[in-house]
């Protein structure tokens, strides 16, 4: 009997260890640090975690854009958010989903390099350095009527 229980326990542990790990979703945090900026671009160091390296790099790029959009990045040339929180509407949700899913945001990424990569429990922790052409990004948002032009 004891042997049977032992087999069952071993089997259960085996099943648990072989099950597919939960896929890590995107989470926006403030782990975006401005390294340098000029009058057009800004370079950020971003920390993220994903279930794969490609997931993590994608999340890092989304996170850097989202911080620019909704929070602003200290010590950068965009310290205040591009989009102020008091004017949030649902009408742009679809636009930003498309903006990221269709890779439109890549038009404004001038450089993106993984600087460090560590795997722990199948999770990929990365530090990525991303340079964004903020002037072109702002112009794009103005053209799409996501934000207003200066003074309008």
């Amino acid at each position: 009997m004891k042997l049977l229980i032992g087999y069952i326990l071993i089997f259960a542990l085996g099943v648990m260890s072989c099950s597919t790990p939960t896929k890590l979703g995107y989470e926006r945090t403030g782990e975006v640090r401005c390294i340098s900026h000029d009058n057009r671009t800004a370079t950020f160091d971003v920390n993220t975690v994903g279930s794969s390296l490609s997931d993590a790099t994608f999340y890092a790029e989304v996170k850097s854009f989202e911080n620019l959009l909704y929070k602003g990045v200290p010590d950068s040339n965009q310290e205040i958010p591009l989009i102020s929180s008091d004017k949030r509407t649902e009408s742009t949700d679809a636009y930003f989903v498309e903006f990221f899913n269709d890779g439109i945001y890549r038009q404004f990424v001038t450089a993106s390099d993984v600087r460090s990569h560590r795997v722990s429990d199948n999770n990929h922790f990365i530090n990525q350095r991303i340079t964004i052409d903020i002037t072109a990004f702002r112009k794009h948002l103005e053209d799409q009527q996501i934000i207003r032009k200066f003074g309008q």
Partner: protein
Amino acid sequence: MKTICTLVPGCYLMTFSILVSAQTEVTTAPEAKTLQPTIMVIPFTREGQSLRSKYESDELVRVAITKVKEGFDTRGVNTIDLRAKLKQTSNNEVLQEDQKSDMKDEVIALSGADIYVEVEANKNLSSSGNSVTLIMTSFDAFSGESYSNKVANSPKFYTDNYEKLIMNAVESEIDNFLNTINEKFADLRENGRTVVLSVGILEGSVHDFDSEVGSSGALLSDAIEDWVLENAFKNYYHIQGTTSNKIIFDIVKVPLKDARGNNYRISSFAATLRSYLDSLGLKSERTINGNNVTITIL
């Protein structure tokens, strides 16, 4: 390609967080096209100092002004050129050397600028290298209210090329400077400009604020307050104080632009109030100084 919005359960968290954070600002319906604010960049001058002499004698300031103007150009905003405006006003014989003290106000008033930006640049010399400090301050030309202030320092270099240092300093802060102006301007557009309105009774007049006026027999003070309520932008006003012969509204909001998209003129606000007083059988005079309107009932 990775997606942030799919129906795959594993992507739910990702989808959710993006959707939440994407609840953004944004212009909903297209509005009538509004005119951009007009902006003029001028050097900071001390009392009695002429704008022209400061501009012409200080190369550092000229570089700083040009770089700040470049920043506005990048955002698609045209600026009024100070030198051209100085020439124009000079041709109009408005600016004489003996009017130095008033010159800045004159140039600003005659320029038609909505916003003016004052730029001050100073050299810092030290044994560990030279740097420059740049002070940029923007004001509402209408009320003198400050919009945005930034102090930018260039890194220290062993160089005498101060123009390069000033470019460095401007570039480090110009975007944030413009962003703050833009934010303040958006707030003005949304909530209106502030006008200070004083309504008084001329000494010796037969009227006072307790006089009954109009067909309803309302007190004059109540009638004026009702008018301000109806005519203030978004009905927003605040009374600082009332005496028997004076009412001071320290905040009366007026729109930034009129229905045609032109700058709302404070004189038209005063004129409308005078017409209303006239309809009550009261003659009045008005004085306008910046954003201060004084109406005196005769």
